[in-house]
């Protein structure tokens, strides 16, 4: 936009001021809306199992139980303690429930846990640095 004389310059100036005012009002409204959304997001209620119960570095114990049916936690790990190395995404079906056709609402996280070999096998002959990594379903882990 060009300003060839004083009248045009005044009009342009007023236009800019009014545009700035409008813009500020719009930005302010947007901010209010977005902070309201932020608040709503903060207050979201998640479904059971949607958010992982454990985080990286958490110490966990593999439960000692022997359910009837299909399950995937090897017996050699029952009762062993480990540290969460990674949270596996996305959430997965609980295969023990799935085996009975119960699928709805049974999605939770798997956790990759690190367990020292020397804590699994008392007579472990390798290096004390050696460890085992395995994905265990949330329902098999308890926090320690």
């Amino acid at each position, binding site marked *: 936009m060009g300003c060839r004389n004083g009248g045009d310059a005044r009009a342009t100036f007023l236009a800019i001021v009014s545009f700035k005012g409008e813009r500020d009002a719009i930005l302010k409204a947007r901010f209010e809306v977005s902070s309201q959304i932020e608040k709503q997001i903060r207050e979201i209620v998640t479904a059971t199992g949607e958010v992982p119960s454990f985080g990286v570095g958490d110490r966990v114990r593999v439960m000692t139980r022997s359910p009837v049916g299909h399950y995937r936690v*090897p017996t050699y790990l029952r009762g062993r303690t480990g540290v969460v190395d990674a949270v596996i995404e996305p959430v997965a079906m609980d295969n023990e429930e799935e085996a009975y056709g119960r699928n709805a609402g049974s999605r939770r996280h798997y956790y990759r846990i690190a367990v020292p070999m020397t804590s699994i096998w008392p007579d472990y002959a*390798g290096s004390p640095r050696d460890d085992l*990594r395995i994905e265990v379903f949330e329902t098999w882990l308890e926090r320690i």
Partner: protein
Amino acid sequence: MSQHDHGHPHAEIGHSERPGYYDIMETAVRELLIERRLLGADEIRRQIEVLDSRTPALGAKVVARAWVDPAFRARLLANGRTACEELGITFYDDTQLIVLENTDTVHNLIVCTLCSCYPRPVLGLPPDWYKLKPYRARAVSEPRVVLAEFGTHIPDNIEVRVSDSTAFVRYLVLPKRPDGTDDYSEEQLAALVTRDAMIGVIPVSIGSSQ
């Protein structure tokens, strides 16, 4: 012996043994699924073709790309499945893939103690020894002895990290790139990478090839 004649003698190719318990069960379940129209014979044949099309050459391509392309390597270690999909290697099932990098301080070994979980989309069918109980039991209880039997001796200051694949996550070992391969092309590197190296029982060496 067979009655036919095509220039060389051989025993008749065929099954003479009676089918075993699981053979009969498989046939019965398959026939029932087809009869009830839950599966078609074409779908079963198609899935066999899918499995047959997967070989360790795919995994070798992934490894070689990771060696020559640091950005791809980073993406591969962050999400094995999506990085493989970038190269056109599809995952026909719901499995995820964690790629385990061998370094100067960690040597990775993979096993499935419960059955024979294996990164089939990138490696194809597992070798028989991988599915048998001696390997499955011993890989988690005396991994260094098992490795030594494959001729792989890991010094005590290097951690042996065994990943037991029992859920929906599969593993692929990213072996160390051998010394003396600086001037190798990506294709030449891929030719060095063997199935066993991607399971973690041996390293990749210049002498090895598929």
